């Protein structure tokens, strides 16, 4: 309970510092996304709404469009990463797609609002995740320049 409170507080501070809950991503190539809700559907038609981390969706995902990589944060200690094989930035949407361990995935992120929708499909089941993204601060220039 205490951990969850700290996580929620940290998230609130981080996102409020950025200005709004979901953010303007125009021009940003690195951003931090958080999953808010997840739904798992089975081929029989049953769907279950669950907390993202109960479906092994990391709480925070760093999206690096330059490196074409999705990764967990260093602070999480999870050390997970997935390459992005297809990237499209069109019509105010950022679309990321890829495939890993039998799972095809699509991320659709609104550049204007930072709203995130993810679909992960694998044999016999699919997971839909909704969340929000905010730009990550650009790396500080080397000292002395």
């Amino acid at each position, binding site marked *: 309970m205490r951990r969850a409170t700290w996580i929620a507080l940290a998230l609130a501070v981080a996102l409020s510092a950025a200005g709004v809950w979901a953010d303007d991503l125009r021009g940003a190539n690195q951003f931090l996304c958080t999953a808010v809700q997840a739904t798992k559907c089975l081929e029989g038609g049953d769907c279950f709404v669950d907390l993202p981390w109960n479906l092994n969706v990391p709480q925070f995902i760093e999206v690096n469009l330059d490196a074409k990589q999705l990764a967990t944060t260093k602070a999480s*200690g999870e050390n997970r990463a*997935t390459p992005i094989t297809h990237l499209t930035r069109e019509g105010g949407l950022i679309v990321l797609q890829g495939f890993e361990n039998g799972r095809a995935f699509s991320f659709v992120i609104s550049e204007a609002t930072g709203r995130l929708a993810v679909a992960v499909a694998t044999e016999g089941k699919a997971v839909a995740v909704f969340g929000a993204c905010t730009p990550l601060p650009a790396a500080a220039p080397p000292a002395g320049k």
Partner: protein
Amino acid sequence: MTAKLAITVVIVVLCAGAAAAQAPAPAPAPAAPTGQKTLAATLNVYVFPTTGQTPAQQSTDEATCYNWAVQNTGTDPFNLQKQAQQQAQQTQQAQEQAKQAGQGAGMQGAVRGAAAGALIGEIANDDPGKGAAYGAAAGAIAGRRRGQQAQQQATQQATQQGQQAQQATAEQMTNFKKAFSVCLEANKYMVKY
């Protein structure tokens, strides 16, 4: 004169013996306990001399029957005790090894997880470890679970082997006691075990 006296004594003794053999035999008193365990007693076999055999005679008979039973069953109870102790040690060692192997699997899992944590590839993998951290942590959990399963199987196997060995030892011991008893009964002892 001395020779005549000796012959007379011999005749008297033999006559007394013949008379004793013809008369109904009184129930012999059991040999007084000497405080030392007999061979049979060490095997938890109770032996009663029905024809008044002396403790020395009983000891000799027990030794003879022990050897006879060893030859006929191929089992020596004293070796069996050693074997049973060794088996118990081996079972314990196997269980400890299984335990260590289980712990090792957890460590290996952690290393694997740290090296190859998939982000999307692990989503909805039906892992029962809900809310668990992934990457290294997930690897450790999966490794521990595999390790625990392997440990349980190995421990179970070691325990089963130990039980089977104990059962086999018990059967061998029972067979030996049967043979030992048959031999003693043939030598006019009442035997219970």
